[in-house]
């Protein structure tokens, strides 16, 4: 499998598996509470050059700020 990259670098439509979250305790807790736990599949629905990115995780849509998306480490699914 390829090297982990940050969620923010995924293209629209790409699926990935969450590896870990490199953030402070607060951010990590909020994300895991929303279901972004390690080994979870995550799909990027929308990612423009700016603004939040939209992901689908555990069957629902979430909007995540770019700053946070730059802290979520994922492995792209082949």
């Amino acid at each position, binding site marked *: 499998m390829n090297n982990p990259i940050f969620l923010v670098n995924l293209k629209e439509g790409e699926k990935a598996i969450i590896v*870990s*979250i490199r953030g402070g*305790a*607060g*951010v*990590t*807790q*909020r*994300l*895991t*509470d*929303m*279901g972004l*736990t*390690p*080994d*979870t599949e995550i799909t990027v629905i*929308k990612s*423009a050059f*700016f*603004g*939040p990115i*939209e992901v689908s995780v*555990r*069957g*629902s*849509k*979430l*909007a*995540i*700020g*770019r*700053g*946070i998306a730059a802290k979520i480490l994922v492995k792209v699914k082949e």
Partner: protein
Amino acid sequence: MKKITLALAGNANVGKSVIFNYLTGLHQHIGNWPGKTIEKAEGTLHHKGYTIDVIDLPGIYSLSTFSIEELISRKYIVEEKPDVVINVIDATNLERNMYFTLQLIELGRPIIIALNQMDLAKKKGICIDIKKLQKFLGVPIVPVIATQGEGIHELVHEAITLVEKGYKKPKIEYGKEVEKEVQKLTKSLNKIELGYPKRFLAIKLIEGDKEIRKLIKEIDPHIIKITEKYAKNIERIHGHDRFTIIASERYKIANEIAKDYISIGSCKAKYSDKLHEITTHGLWGYLIMIFSVLSLFYIIFTFGNFFSDILIESFMSLQTIFEQYFGTEIVSSLAWGVIEGLIAGITIVLPYILPFYIILGLLEDSGYISRIAFLMDKFMHKIGLHGKAFIPLMLGYGCNVPACLGCRIMETQREKLIAIFVTTLIPCAAVTTVILGLVGKYVGLVWALSLYIINLMIVFILGRIAFKVLPGEPTELIMEMHDYRIPHLKTVIKQAWFRIKDFIYIAFPLIIVCSFLIKVLDVTNLSVSIENIMKPITVGWLGLPVFTGIALIAGIPRKELTLIILAAHGGTTNFSAVLSPVQMIVFSLVTMLYIPCIATIAALIKEIGWKKAIFITVFEIVFAIFVGGIMFRLLML
């Protein structure tokens, strides 16, 4: 009479308030949680000889202590011990909802699951094996379609049965390694009496919950030491931090539930998906947003203008009748001042604020506002806020009072302060009537619109400065965007009413008192000396006529009063005879910015304390006068 207490708990946007409304009807009371600025909704119903109190807990995703809402809900359930907790969950989103359900079960109170939005689930082709799920969780499940009132009766019936027959605590086990440590720690907690179930305490300790840790440390610091050992052990095995491990364990169970008890039929691309796609689109999304916001304002202010004219006319005929009976002596003139204050309040609320909030509520409930928040996130970040802050800002265009209270949705104190600050700069419906009645009518709509654009620029610049000046890191957006759905009218109307109630309770009394005081100034001729004192500012710096001084003072209780006073002191309602176009623009600009009205100041004090409230007030007065003078000089070039 036998009494039962039910608490409604669940994620945001799952239909909790709709169920709450069905259960309690008109017998509800909305207040605040003690010492907190979080809404607390309570109500009662009577059924089969029981008096049933219902509490609507805030919508949350977890029972950690990340937010005040989560802490309140947790404390309420443990300390007040409601007889039954009704866990409202969204059938279309079982996995995420189950995460919360599992935590609720750990809290140990008897639970019933209200499996809501069964109709939407069916449409999506989602079939849930309720019987098997019920068996697995060990908790009664009632299928509900709240928007149609289906299943509400069964819910109450089930709650009473649960109270009468007793509740057997379900036990849901985690993965082997975690479960082992949880059980060991649970045993060590044998002597701890805190009201929380031991297993819950053990899990929370391992998770690293600060609140629980503090409580236990005071009683037995030794337990904290053991906890450290257990938690480190798990962290070593799993390779993640403790909070993540526990959350993963719960989600693993939630995921298994979703896999085992749900079967999904054929799913074609739905209408709501297409709508989502286009309303969050990089180009179309913004165009649709601009179009919908502009048409919202257009509709509200055309309709409002028409309706408020009718209202004012009928009230004015009242004045003639009033004067016939009571004359125009000082006392009766003062009394009329009080009535006038009341009338002015009504002519703002009914034609403008109420319809505005109803339409906004419809957009909110349908899910569109969260799409706007998504689109606006980038811009809001420039002033240190995230997309969600757009909601109170929009409310501000109706009335600043509920908008300030609406800033409670912000995650940190710092963000709340910035959001409140920029909200007070937003021109409310009353300011809009001034701008339209003065600049819009006599100078041109383009100029009126320019004032709004200038205002947005000022909001942006001041917001950015506040963001730079206030210490702290900005919080980023994490927001669920639920599927589009048809809004539930009753819930929307109730929501609009509660927002307006803020205005009525805070603003109305203040408006009436201040209208009276202004009338006193008028009757005693004190207004003339005030105008003279203000001369250096009004005439010297702003280039306005002397009589505008008292009109600006009158704007403190309510901004729309400035126009009325302007007419009275200028001696005519044809403002073009007494004010030049430049003066109208300057006057409107100052009115727009110069002070949050008295009701907003009261709301500020309530939300951020009097020191900050006074600071914002003084700052805005100075700033408005400064900007007004600059504008005057620019326009005279």
